[in-house]
């Protein structure tokens, strides 16, 4: 198993990191709640060209898309990139939909309406769709209907109810599927849907790894600099051990996401387990990093002004997006416990 990045992948990471550092400051992240146009502008100017990373190999790959999404996650990037490249395009490609090529090329944007009323991600019989992200920023919504079926509709044709969440930089909505919409859907092979869900889950997991990395790095840096009792707080064992455990959880998640991405690209039989491990590990790592990172920062980290809470919030929201870590652990248990 070789985790080395190619020269091109190293360049991809460096370029993405510079891009988000320069073009996605926290002032932008904080502004998009009131000014969605700022998120659209970021996408149109800087991110749309990267959507083709979501293409199936050899044009794109899960590995490359993950590398890019890690950097997006570190910056808490707002806008329709995750919805389009991480959710919409993989579903359309898996379903071989007419719009798949345009989606992968970044010519059209979209999001996915799949989670049921109970918040779980999988074919279900209900007509409520929750956790639909950034409907207000995209051209299309890929709606998974009971059956399952798939219908892609114009985003502005749907009546949506926006739902406030912890995540300040990503808008969540719910939809009620009416009868004509359900009737318009084409049948979707459940196995195809499962494959798409795995790709979607991995995209969110990659974003979570970036969130965790920022929290670990920022907390370590702060602990080196902040002086109390005449010494940096990072010299105290209680603080050191907390940071080590945060870093360990991050390293586990980072490796698990890279491994799952390789498994998906290779169509390896281990890919189902690998994805569940990746999403569960990433959700827990980012939440731990947010919680303990705030503790390491003390009072300053608890302020609205500090950027830490932007990541803490995204960590909690992303942990629920495309399956909570509990949901993924239970799917992993199904695979582990099945009689062999």
């Amino acid at each position, binding site marked *: 198993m070789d985790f080395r990045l190619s020269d091109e992948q190293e360049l991809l990471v460096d370029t993405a990191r510079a891009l988000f550092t320069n073009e996605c400051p926290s002032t932008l992240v904080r502004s998009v709640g009131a000014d969605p146009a700022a998120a659209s502008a970021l996408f149109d100017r800087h991110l749309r060209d990267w959507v083709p990373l979501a293409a199936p190999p050899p044009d794109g790959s899960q590995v490359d898309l993950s590398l890019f999404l890690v950097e997006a996650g570190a910056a808490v990037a707002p806008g329709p990139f995750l919805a389009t490249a991480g959710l919409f395009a993989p579903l359309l490609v898996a379903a071989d939909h007419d719009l798949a090529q345009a989606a992968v090329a970044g010519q059209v944007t979209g999001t996915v309406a799949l989670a049921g009323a109970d918040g779980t991600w999988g074919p279900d019989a209900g007509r409520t769709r929750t956790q639909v992200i950034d409907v207000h920023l995209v051209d299309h919504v890929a709606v998974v209907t009971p059956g399952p079926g798939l219908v892609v509709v114009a985003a502005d044709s749907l009546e949506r109810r926006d739902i406030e969440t912890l995540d300040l930089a990503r808008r969540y909505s719910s939809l009620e599927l009416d009868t004509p919409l359900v009737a318009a859907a084409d049948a979707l092979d459940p196995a195809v849907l499962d494959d798409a869900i795995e790709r979607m889950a991995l995209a969110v997991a990659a974003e979570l790894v970036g969130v965790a990395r920022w929290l670990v790095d920022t907390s370590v840096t702060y602990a080196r600099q902040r002086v109390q009792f005449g010494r940096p707080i990072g010299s105290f064992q209680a603080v050191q051990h907390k940071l080590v455990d945060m870093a360990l959880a991050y390293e586990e998640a980072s490796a698990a996401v890279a*491994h799952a991405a*390789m498994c998906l690209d290779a169509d390896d039989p281990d890919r189902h387990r690998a994805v569940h491990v990746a999403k569960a590990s990433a959700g827990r790592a980012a939440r731990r990093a947010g919680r303990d990172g705030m503790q390491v920062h003390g009072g300053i980290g608890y302020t609205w002004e500090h950027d830490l809470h932007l990541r803490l919030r995204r960590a909690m929201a992303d942990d629920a997006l495309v399956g909570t870590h509990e949901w993924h652990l239970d799917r992993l*248990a199904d695979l582990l416990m099945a009689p062999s």
Partner: protein
Amino acid sequence: MNLGYDPADEAFRDELRAFVDEHAPPEIKQGRDWIGDDEDTDADGIMVIPAWARRWQATLFDHGWMIPGYPPELGGRNATPIQTLIYLEELASRGIPRSVHFGGYAIVGPSLLEFGDEAQKALAPAAIRGDTVWCVGMSEPDAGSDLANLSTRAIDDGDSFIVNGQKVWTSYAVVAEKCFCYVRTDPDVPKHKGISVLIIDLDTPGVQIRPLYHVSHRAEFAEVFFTDVVVPKANLVGALNDGWRITMGALAHERGSLWVEGVMGAQRGIDDLVVLAHARGLADDAVVRRRIAELASQVRALRAMGYKGFSSFAQGSSAPEHSFMKLATSEVRQAIFELAIDLQGAERAVTDPAVAYEGARWQRSWLTSLASTIGGGTSEIQRNVIATRVLGLPRD
């Protein structure tokens, strides 16, 4: 990034498998988590090295499978780092130990080769083959985590040193012929700078070895007492007062793969937990399923992390991932054994071999696993080291 290995490396694996299938002694209980389960002891619970284990280690050496990265005269076949990884992965996934005593092949042999004079280097092949059994004298009553605080004293007496003091937690001392012993040769300089290494023959007058029973009431450990023990000057390894440099884990080419056994052992533990859950009628219990999945996901993530670190190692860069592996695998293995005990419900404390589940092997493994977060650097010391060396935090 990619998942597989080169055909040449897969051929290496095939050759190893064929060798193991042909030569592995039937006494090795393959595929089991052998923590605390297979280490042989006599009627008093004191460690012995069974004949099959001696034969197996010698067979591995003679066929170049003992330390594959070494040349044939040292029990190897000049294997690449990736082949060494495959070797450790293959043995660990089948639960096959190379040796029942790691001091000689993993610490003493490589250290002699790196730091010894010609006469001392000549001792290495027998140490690696297991013909000479070694122990390593490090810990003392007042030098545990603070190892450099050791006070066993070696005083220059012309042609020899006179050694007085005590070692403790000395693994394999009850079966060893020689001790690779860290002693204080200069008490008047900062503590790291006054330590030397001596080879001490354990049949020298004045050496007393007392088995030290651990919580499983078995004794692989011992206390070793030195009273006016005369050690020839020729037995000094490396330069006088330069012993701190001769550190453990000198198998440089295996350093990138030290995590393999811990992770594979944990993976076998997960597999066995699943079997146990079915056997106890708990396979459909939501809490049990969640707890198994949590541990399984961590083990799988650690496995990915080990390979990720190996990729950096094989490239010649440092691998921060590997600094975490001892800490993480020892803690997750304890959690696996503890869950296995929980799955035995109200019978979890039963160890009577006549009625205990699987002969109480889970209880024994659990007790044994408690050593893994203490020995070889406690988890607290591991965290201190990671904090300062990997995260770059200031020292306490």
